[in-house]
């Protein structure tokens, strides 16, 4: 009897945003599932400490710390990953930012920053990795989207717009690349406690609004987002494409 497993044995994965909470958890879970990794992050320090931790547990991986600002940056990142890994079987786009601000105060710079990282750079990393996957004859792409792509959230006009875009991008790429044996899916979490969100929860009212909005009565953990990502990246999800897998404790069904 072959026991179905969440395995990435013999797979090579590029993970963006790995110096963040969710990206870091994805890297740890992917390494434990047997994948060879190439990690991207904006904080060289955090990337190094993650790499050291993975190395100590016997997992090897490469990494590149850069800001993703232009399509050239995206191509350079994918080139570096291909040089290091030899191939890319799995791409996880978890790099993202959020700059909460009242809609009437949102500046053009704020809007551009959020849309550039969360949507435009996500697309160009995917385009570069997708070209490799087409050459290789297939692959798996998982975008870390958000419930903000499904429901509105106050003070997050740019963020919600970017994540709604990610969801439609997911469906469009799934359609276009199905013929190349590339699965494109997204994981859409609710709020997760990370360094990225810690500041928001200093506001008690906001914290209560979040907890009260989640039927399961708590926030998601980084690992819970990583498990869904691992499932979609594994061979167990070969028939799934274009799906937005929501990990939100029920927030969006209310």
């Amino acid at each position, binding site marked *: 009897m072959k026991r179905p497993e969440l395995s990435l044995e013999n797979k090579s994965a590029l993970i963006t945003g790995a110096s963040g909470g969710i990206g870091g958890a994805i890297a740890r879970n992917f390494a434990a599932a047997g994948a060879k990794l190439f990690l991207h992050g904006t904080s060289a320090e955090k990337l190094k400490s993650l790499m050291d931790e993975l190395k100590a547990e016997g997992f090897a991986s490469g990494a590149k710390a850069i800001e993703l600002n232009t399509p050239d940056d995206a191509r350079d990142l994918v080139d570096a990953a291909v040089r290091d890994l030899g191939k890319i079987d799995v791409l996880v786009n978890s790099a993202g930012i959020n700059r909460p601000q009242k809609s009437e105060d949102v500046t053009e710079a704020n809007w551009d920053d959020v849309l550039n990282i969360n949507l435009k750079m996500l697309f160009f990393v995917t385009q570069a990795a997708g070209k490799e996957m087409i050459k290789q004859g297939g692959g798996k792409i998982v975008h870390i989207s958000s419930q903000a792509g499904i429901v509105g959230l106050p003070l997050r006009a740019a963020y919600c717009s970017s994540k709604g875009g990610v969801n439609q991008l997911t469906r469009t790429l799934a359609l276009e690349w199905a013929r190349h044996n590339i699965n494109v899916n997204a994981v859409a979490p609710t709020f997760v406690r990370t360094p990225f969100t810690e500041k928001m929860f200093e506001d008690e009212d906001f914290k209560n609004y979040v907890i009260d909005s989640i039927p399961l009565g708590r926030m998601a953990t980084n690992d819970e987002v990583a*498990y*869904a990502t691992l499932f979609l990246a594994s061979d*167990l999800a070969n028939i799934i494409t274009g799906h937005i897998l929501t990990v939100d404790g029920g927030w969006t069904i209310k």
Partner: protein
Amino acid sequence: MSLEIFDLTGKTAMITGSTKGLGEVAAVALAKAGADIAVCGRNRENLEQVSTSIKALGRDSAGFYLDVTSKQSVQEGVEQILKHFGKVDILVNNAGVNHRVPVLEFPEEAWDLVINTNLKGYFLVAQAVVPQMIERGYGKVINMSSIFGLTPLPDQLAYSSSKGGVNQLTRVMALEWAKQGIRVNAVAPTYFETELVTQIRNDPERFKFINERTPMGRWGQPTEIEGIVIFLAAPASDFITGQIIFIDGGWTVW
């Protein structure tokens, strides 16, 4: 590590309509992942056969007569299951029928049979099984829905209506039982190559239509349902509730 979050050892699962088709595949999948299995259906010979094949995998299993359209049969069946296994941790609502005719010719008896089996049956079985999950504060309900709950086809009046109903039933149950630790999700498959749809499979025109309608250009293979069923039954998905997960090769993304 991935074994732990994907392990069902010590859990008991009951699957309605598991004497054949995807229900049988789901039952075997949960057994492979470690669960003991209550096989449920109306064909006594098949009940015996499927439970025997699961016992050969080293799990406890038995067959139980269960007609999901009869409240009395459901109550008696669930009573026997609880007597045998002591508990049910995982419920897969799967028993379903279809009837394909144009709306203007659709017989009332066929409408009643499809709705009573596919929709009311899910409600009756959940109502009988979930109370003992609530007592223990943890449980998983997986409702087998269909792509037709979202994107219908002509001649599928009752079936599509029943599956649309299953999706909303899933969300309501998820909301009501979230605080009691019960997760309720649905799986929405495309056409899978089981013996139940051999007739469609052998109709060249319909076979071609289905392939062309699907971005991946193919039907699902029965074992491709294994991953999602285990994932939704396992601790890996503990923060996911109220979701309709499409396993459809991209059918519903366009």
